[in-house]
């Protein structure tokens, strides 16, 4: 094994050396310049290998099982659905959309608020520069990165087995997801601030918490608000699909109407959701621009 490795590395070194001759050129005054070796070709071939592997695993496998003509013959299905959405649009269904849509908005509002309130103290625990030389920030960050790996939907799925169904599950899942994201964004900001004022106030005899309130809070508060707004946008989009696992909101009727193949109703749901998302997005962008 060892000899094989060294053989391979020798081969690569040899290749690079031989390659160097082509990349060296002599200028008119007699000096030699060498173009630096570019790793682009290595990275590109690696990506190509990965691509071929995945292509074989998913695409080729799919066509082997179903055949190419089967796939082509069913592509129009997708456009038929879109066409039906446009043609059969059923405006009278809108009255059924309002209440779940309000639920979705409420889930994301309360989830964002509670999650970001919980995030502030934990973000302090996770910042190296506030806590000083201690093992707490490392442990906190590790746990946060594990919590952060799951999307909102996985939390909702787990809670749906514990609590049954309802908007409460959606709120709980949104709170945990918001908490994990806001904490990360917040400790990154706290760790990058100017520590001069904090140290000066600590030197006057203030406790860490007092010094944080007086010196750090004014520096981060604006960005804290803008993080909250940004997360509200994300949560609104995420909580639209929470209904697929019985966690309340507009996803429930979306799932039902799709299963019943009432595409006209689905179109109304999507349109209502789209309008709300766009309004919230523009509002939050405006507010964030004001904040910075």
């Amino acid at each position, binding site marked *: 094994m060892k000899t094989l490795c060294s053989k391979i590395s020798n081969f690569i070194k040899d290749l690079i050396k031989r390659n160097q001759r082509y990349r060296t050129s002599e200028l008119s005054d007699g000096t030699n310049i060498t173009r630096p070796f570019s790793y682009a070709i290595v990275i590109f071939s690696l990506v190509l290998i*990965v*691509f071929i*592997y*995945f*292509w074989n*695993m*998913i*695409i080729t*496998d*799919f066509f082997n099982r*179903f055949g190419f003509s089967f*796939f082509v013959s*069913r*592509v129009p*299905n*997708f456009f038929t*659905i*879109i066409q039906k959405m446009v043609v059969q649009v059923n405006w009278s269904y809108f009255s059924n959309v309002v209440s779940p849509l309000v*639920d979705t*908005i*409420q*889930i994301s*509002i*309360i989830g964002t*608020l509670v999650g970001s309130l919980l995030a502030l103290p934990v973000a302090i625990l996770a910042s190296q520069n506030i806590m000083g030389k201690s093992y707490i920030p490392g442990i906190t960050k590790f746990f946060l*990165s*594990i919590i952060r*790996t*799951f*999307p909102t*939907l*996985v939390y909702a*799925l*787990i809670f749906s*087995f*514990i*609590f*049954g*169904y*309802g*908007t*409460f599950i*959606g*709120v709980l899942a949104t709170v945990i997801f918001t908490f994990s994201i806001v904490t990360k964004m917040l400790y990154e900001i706290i760790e990058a601030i100017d520590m001069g004022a904090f140290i000066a106030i600590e030197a006057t005899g203030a406790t860490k918490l007092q010094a944080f309130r007086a010196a750090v809070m004014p520096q981060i508060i604006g960005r804290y608000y803008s993080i909250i707004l940004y997360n509200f946008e994300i949560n609104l*989009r995420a909580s639209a*699909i929470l209904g*697929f*696992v019985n966690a*309340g909101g507009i*996803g429930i009727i*979306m*799932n039902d109407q*799709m299963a019943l193949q009432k595409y006209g109703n*689905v179109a109304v749901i*999507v349109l209502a*959701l*789209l309008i709300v*998302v*766009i309004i919230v*997005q523009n509002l939050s962008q405006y507010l964030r621009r004001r904040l910075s």
Partner: protein
Amino acid sequence: MQTVLQAYEARPRHTVRNVLVASVILFLTIWSSDVINYPGLSDNGIEIARNIFRALYNPTWSLVFSLGVDGIPFLMFETLGIAFLGTLLGALLSVPFAFLTARNIVGKFNIIGNTVITTIRSFPFFLMALMFVRVSGPGAMTGVLTIGVLSIGMISKLYIEVIEDIDPGILMSLDALGATKYQKIRYGIIPQLTASILSVVIYRFEINVKNATVLGIVGAGGIGVTLLTAMTAGRWRDASAALWGIIIVVLVVDYFSTKLRRRLVNG
């Protein structure tokens, strides 16, 4: 000392603004607090919760280490593959969208393209998956198509930005040097684009990996299928094996994506 106190007393207070913001937040909280209607635990909720926690540190080890089609490693590779191929598909599909929306190419007609892109950006992605299930049936292929189409929203937005502020000065100076068309593209345009495009595509890949883990819930392949079936059947140890698979893969992808993007931005 007196002047310090005077200055402290005269500090800006923003009383009106603060009260206004606080009352808006308070109103929103009270208005939306009625969604917290605690439904009570389901029939054996506490037992399920206990089982889930117990299973978390004792997953089905045979699933975690098996190399077969049902094993967690294969499913995670499939999830990664869905995200990878989907991101590539999205990056390809975004090119025509971007050229049809860039302001310096189509002028005022960019409003059509913008509407389409905004729609795709905020389209609920489970609905898209349900639509593609009707094309390619349940399986990984559906996931690839869904993620590919959904990635258009973010990636084409970046392409548009890039196209709209290409620096024409570089092209002019290459013209003045007598560069051919190929040389102009190779040395004038590509170096301007690679770093920002690669970093956004990598970032989108990171998001897509997370999306691909849950796409299985509507039958679009990946680890979500195993997670859902294991949970509905009450096989918590299998579900926990799937959860650990998600944790490890997302952490690894997160780490490398952050590292790569930092290198790309810093040059």
